[in-house]
């Protein structure tokens, strides 16, 4: 039977490939999608999710979120929770841009205040927050300082004057995941990351100035509690751990490939799924090194916030405090985290791999900041440049069904090469300006690469997770200015 024919409909937004489909599957595959999104997924995604379901220690399901597409080993938009006692950890299940993630920042400015200054703002941010493949930041760190950064994350930044104490409360893990150990990272990784703190990077990384159109507030009460009001301007950005995370992944993939079968007897079909037992020396070393990537990324987004505050305060000639530049939340996309979840009625320690997927804890879950205990965790969903973005909240149902996880963005429907062949970057920039979006970029071909039509429809993706009940919509944002890496 073909994979497509084996997909079983559970309800309008949930689908499964049963465990019986292939002998080596340990758990079924579960896909969250509307019928339309399901039809749009490439078949490789399903093969990859099936391969993931064969990994030792996987619990409940191998998940695909509605924005799923093929990636290195695991699908992007893939989730796999492993039993912490006898499961594995896999770099391909985390992604190479470790803790690539989103941060949402409020202002108390309105569209009327910002519209006349949008060019000035975007141009200045473009200057202050470097973008591009090998871009380097203004922060000059020594090796020992960099090691502090990767062990302490955003906390290091705030202690060194790049941010406010209150920022930390509104970051996953308070901006500093415990257990990061810089002795587990290579000197190459340090070399690659040392001058990249405070840089946006390239590819699908960007920074946007967005507008809360009154008709786009879905949940008025929740929006108000978060501090969102009609016609407000907010800032959203997407970036990660840059070359540093990439090198950490490369280093450990090589180590895992050497020991996986020889030392631990783990057999897999696709080398891109290289893994090691979570409790092994190699697994724990990678976990501690990967956490350095998580912290590097939190620090990166923290330093960028510092630069954004400088720019706004210069352009509006007012303190950043007075402009209300507060962090709503900062979420990670590419991580594996040790969490407690209930599986078959039993509370247990679980290593949740989220690759191109966002943690979406429901109300009253330990680890949430007190401001969101009642509401549930804010989830920031970046769309493509043209389509707009969302703020969602995590739900109890996500806790029960998906280890507290939801989608991360809109996901590609075509390859980058194909997108760029169909559209020219310069034309797109002009077209967006006509529609009221001012854009600065280091690479026109990169703009075409990230064109909206290359992505799944963000509304459709968000509808799928909302209707499935693993997230709740709060508000949709429309971009008016964009800096692209």
């Amino acid at each position, binding site marked *: 039977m073909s994979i497509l024919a084996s997909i079983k409909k559970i309800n309008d937004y949930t689908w499964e490939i049963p465990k019986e489909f292939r002998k080596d599957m340990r758990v079924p595959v579960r896909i969250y999608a509307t019928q339309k999104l399901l039809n749009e997924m490439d078949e*490789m995604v399903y093969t*990859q999710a099936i*391969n993931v379901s064969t990994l030792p220690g996987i619990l409940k399901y191998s998940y695909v979120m509605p924005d799923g597409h*093929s*990636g*290195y*080993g695991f699908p992007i938009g893939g989730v796999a929770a492993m039993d912490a006692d006898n499961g594995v950890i896999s770099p391909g299940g985390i992604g*190479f841009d470790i803790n690539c993630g989103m941060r949402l920042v409020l202002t108390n400015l309105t569209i009327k205040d910002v519209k006349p200054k949008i060019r000035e703002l975007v141009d200045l941010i473009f200057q202050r927050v470097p973008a*591009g*493949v*090998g*871009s*380097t930041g203004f922060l000059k760190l020594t090796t020992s300082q960099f090691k502090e950064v990767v062990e302490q994350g955003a906390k290091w930044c705030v202690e060194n004057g790049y941010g406010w104490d209150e920022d930390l409360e509104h970051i996953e893990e308070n901006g500093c995941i415990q257990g990061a150990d810089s002795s587990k990272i290579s000197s*190459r990784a340090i*070399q*690659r990351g040392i001058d990249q703190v405070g840089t946006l990077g*390239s*590819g699908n990384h960007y920074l946007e100035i967005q507008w809360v159109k009154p008709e786009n507030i879905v949940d008025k009460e929740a929006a108000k509690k978060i501090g969102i009001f009609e016609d407000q301007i907010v800032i959203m950005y997407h970036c990660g751990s840059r070359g540093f995370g*990439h*090198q950490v*992944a*490369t280093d450990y*993939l*090589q180590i895992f*490939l050497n020991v996986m*079968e020889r030392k631990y007897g783990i057999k*897999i*079909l*696709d*080398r*891109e*799924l290289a893994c090691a037992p979570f409790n092994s020396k190699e697994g724990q070393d990678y976990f501690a090194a990967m956490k350095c990537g998580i912290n590097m990324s939190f620090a990166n987004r923290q330093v960028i916030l510092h630069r954004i505050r400088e720019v706004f305060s210069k352009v509006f000639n007012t303190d950043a405090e007075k402009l209300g530049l507060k962090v709503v939340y900062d979420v990670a996309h590419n991580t594996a985290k040790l969490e407690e979840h209930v599986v078959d009625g039993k509370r247990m320690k679980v290593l949740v791999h989220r690759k191109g997927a966002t943690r979406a804890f429901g109300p009253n879950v330990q680890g949430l900041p007190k401001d969101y205990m009642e509401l549930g965790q804010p989830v920031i969903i970046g769309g493509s440049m043209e389509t707009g973005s969302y703020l969602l909240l995590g739900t109890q149902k996500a806790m029960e069904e998906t280890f507290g996880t939801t989608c991360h963005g809109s996901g590609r429907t075509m*390859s*980058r*090469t194909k997108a*760029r*062949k169909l559209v020219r970057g310069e034309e797109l920039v002009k077209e967006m300006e006509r529609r009221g979006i001012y854009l600065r970029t*280091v*690479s026109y*071909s990169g703009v075409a*690469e990230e064109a909206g039509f290359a992505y799944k429809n963000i509304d459709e993706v968000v509808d799928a997770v909302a209707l499935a009940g693993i997230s709740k919509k709060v508000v949709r944002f429309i971009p008016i200015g964009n800096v692209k890496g």
Partner: protein
Amino acid sequence: MKTPVIVISGFLGAGKTTFLKRLIDNVKRKLAIIMNEFGEVAIDAEVIKGKAVNMIELTGGCVCCSLTGELEYAINEIIEKVKPEYIVIETTGIAEPDSLIYNIENMPSVVLDNVITIVDCDGLAKFPEIGYTQRVQIENADFLLLNKIDLVNEQQIKEIEMKVREINDRALIFRTKYCNGNLDYNLFFGYFIERNEQKLKPEEKQEEFESIYLEVEGYLDRSKFEEFISNLPKEIYRAKGNVIFKDGKYIFNYVAGRLSYDEFNYNKNRFLFVGKNIKKFENNLKNSIKKILQNE
């Protein structure tokens, strides 16, 4: 004049750096090599630090670079500082190379000659499923080196070759051990001969390869020429030479379905076709070329 670029792709540990070493040793030309990082090509050499690139000069005049700035800036800086005859880029094993390839195809200062992907046969025998990233690496290749054949048996090589062919049916496949397979390294450098010696002459010496040289005077019709090239028999995996269109004179280079041009002043259309058992196509090629002349 644009600087030609070769891209080397392949999985972690497939042998990309080994292949690079062989290129450097076997082709005595001025190459600039861009690596993800300074890798295993360890050499004591002088470090030239630029804005977008760190360079070290290797013995024999090549330059080895690690990217610290944006790729396009880095490439332009290398061209300006060291004026290499060729740039060779080694990609990371864990990422899909398609974005990089597209970027190079669209950079004004360079022309993409070809993409070489090294396939680790030992790895594929042990892990039979070709993952997504490897698939994209294989898909984009003009030359595929099935490497580490000493670690697998004939049956396994055949199976791997079949799988690889399913993903890419246009690339020329070589079997190699330590990236060594009695290769004529000039094969990878389509833009050498024409620029450096005024005479384009067959110089592929490997026995199994044949070449055909043809000349014609007059203007060629560009679209007819491109159609002719795209319809070349599969046995012809390389074509290169000079063409004159109404809009200018060019050097062209074709490998496994990939055609590129650069401006080049030469007063004749000339073609060199290289492939396996291709002599039988000579008359057909002559006739086809007559048909792509612009009739005026």
